[in-house]
């Protein structure tokens, strides 16, 4: 087949009806633009929402859970070894809340190549004392550097310096919601009451805002040392070890391994936050469906225009066949017309899509819930561009397929004799 010749014929037909062709191409351009914009925007939003959780959630959390002992006297007894025993109203035994042997666990984790980083934490319940009332709250004792490195702590501290937490003894970074309730400013002193009823004065060195207002109303951060002091525990006390892995997918397997190895509870991020993954998947699915629908509509436009072109160019097709072009040649001519529209429209759509997403990226987007976000989030993933160009070519090919087949089956005798 002489492609150059066939291409010159398709080009001539295209240019002969350039307005219609342009309309068809604009249809493709529009749908590709919207497809890219939709996916980039939706995916940017997804990443942001996932980031809200994933950035702040350890891939694996090691902790000690208070629960009833699995080994009761009855089950250990030789005498009732072959019997089935029922014990009602078993209560958890009094146990320390901290992890056992935390120092050894940490030094082991530091040698594990799958681990990206670790941050110890003490989580404890307190009351913020405001005048005569107590507000329920919780304090996370953290190591500032480790927390910042793994969980971008700095990003959520909207006022004050995170390192003051470490450098100022007995200091606290209050949740924004809690601070508003207590009407305190940076530098003010607040009083908290621990679970044993002892009162501690703490200096406010900053505010943090997580984006989840329920958390901001109760949560605060102190240094490890301050928290240990509040609880009256030793310097090695910690309730959680937060682990970030190099590969998040490994989390369930590694968590299971650690649970067995260290004899404590270990929960992975996938188990703890499965609902977020579901949400992201559904949102992505919806944007793909909408994008593909747009493309299919554009495909119908191309189908119509090609059909019209075939009716208008019956004579041309007939004479091409009479002078020796085969059905396949005619087919190739119309397929290449369709593909040209698809490729041209698709490439234009990629440019416009990039432009539009860039524009959206510049629109201010300030929300109290998301302190680190200033403009609408956009994900400039080249994957979307590749998918869109592939889709535009595939859709236009199918849109051209039937008209091209029809054109290739035109009987020149019917056309020529009909004159």
């Amino acid at each position, binding site marked *: 087949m002489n492609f150059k010749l066939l291409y010159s014929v398709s080009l*001539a037909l295209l240019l002969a009806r350039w307005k219609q062709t342009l309309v068809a191409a604009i249809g493709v351009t529009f749908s590709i633009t919207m497809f890219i914009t939709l996916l980039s925007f939706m995916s940017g939003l997804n990443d942001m929402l996932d980031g809200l959780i994933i950035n702040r959630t350890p891939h694996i959390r090691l902790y000690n859970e208070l629960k009833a002992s699995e080994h009761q006297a009855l089950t250990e007894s030789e005498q009732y070894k072959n019997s089935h025993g029922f014990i009602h109203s078993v209560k958890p035994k009094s146990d320390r809340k901290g992890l056992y042997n935390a120092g050894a666990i940490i030094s082991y984790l530091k040698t594990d190549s799958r681990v990206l980083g670790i941050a110890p934490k003490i989580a404890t319940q307190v009351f913020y004392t405001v005048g005569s009332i107590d507000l329920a709250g919780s304090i996370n004792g953290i190591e500032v550097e480790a927390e910042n490195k793994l969980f971008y702590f700095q990003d959520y501290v909207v006022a004050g310096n995170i390192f003051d937490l470490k450098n100022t003894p007995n200091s606290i970074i209050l949740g924004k919601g809690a601070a508003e309730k207590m009407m305190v400013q940076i530098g003010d002193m607040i009083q908290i009451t621990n679970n044993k009823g002892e009162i501690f004065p703490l200096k406010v060195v900053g505010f943090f805002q997580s984006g989840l207002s329920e958390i901001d109303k109760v949560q605060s951060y102190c240094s490890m040392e301050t928290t240990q002091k509040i609880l009256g525990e030793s310097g090695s006390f910690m309730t959680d070890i937060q682990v970030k892995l190099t590969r998040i997918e490994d989390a369930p397997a590694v968590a299971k391994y650690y649970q067995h190895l260290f004899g404590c509870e270990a929960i992975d991020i996938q188990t703890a936050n499965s609902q977020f993954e579901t949400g992201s998947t559904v949102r992505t699915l919806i944007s793909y469906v909408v994008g593909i629908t747009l493309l299919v509509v554009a495909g119908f436009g191309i189908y119509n225009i090609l059909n019209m072109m075939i009716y208008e160019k019956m004579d041309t097709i007939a004479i091409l066949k*009479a002078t*020796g*072009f085969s059905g396949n040649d005619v087919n190739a001519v119309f397929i290449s017309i369709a593909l040209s529209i698809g490729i041209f429209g698709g490439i234009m759509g990629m440019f416009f899509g990039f432009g539009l997403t860039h524009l959206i990226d510049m629109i201010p987007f300030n929300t109290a819930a998301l302190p680190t976000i200033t403009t609408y989030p956009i994900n400039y993933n080249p994957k979307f561009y590749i998918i869109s160009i592939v889709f535009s070519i595939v859709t236009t090919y199918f849109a051209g397929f039937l008209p091209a087949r029809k054109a290739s089956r035109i009987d020149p005798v019917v056309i*020529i004799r009909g*004159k």
Partner: protein
Amino acid sequence: MSKVILEAKSIQKFFHDPTTVEVLKQISFTINAGEFVSVIGKSGCGKSTLLYILSTMDTDYNGELFIDGQNMRNKKEYELARVRNELIGFVFQFHYLLNEFTVLRNVMLPGLKLGKYSEQEVEHRALEKLKILGIDNEALKKPNQLSGGQKQRVAIARALINDPIILMGDEPTGNLDKRNTDVVFDIFKELSAEYKQSLLIVTHDNEFAKQTSRIIEMSDGKIISDK
């Protein structure tokens, strides 16, 4: 005796719509190289139908057709396209030039399709053909800028581009006035005399037919005289 270039053996054709009618009844004849043949007959006698069968465009017939010694039956669609491209030149009542292309490009298209010569050679040959027909000055115009007679001459040039063994015409002067008819007829005569081009022209113009070397007269789907 010169070489037989086209042979029809008992060609039979039916139209089925609305009722089955036998349009061509066992037509058999041969055409030798260099002959100038005209087919005449009343409207509806089947002469055009016969021509479209001979041109390989219509494949729905009984009987056998040989062009240049090859049997056209059992040939695939693209093989027949190749035969039309290489061996047959066709001129219709209407010129069927493509307005999207220049006159030169129109003439070149079948040549480019054949792919026997390079593009430059095809262009050169197309200009030669246009010169024979006296319209080489119009080569770069678009067909819609030409007069009816000129268009028909371009169509003849296009039919000749691949040096076909036979040039077929379906009332090629049917749309032309007297003067242009004469011009086209003179061209055919010149092609026949000087270039030994075989021609098969369907016409209802008896004046025209009389000047050809062989007249086949048809009536009611049969050949009634051949002289």
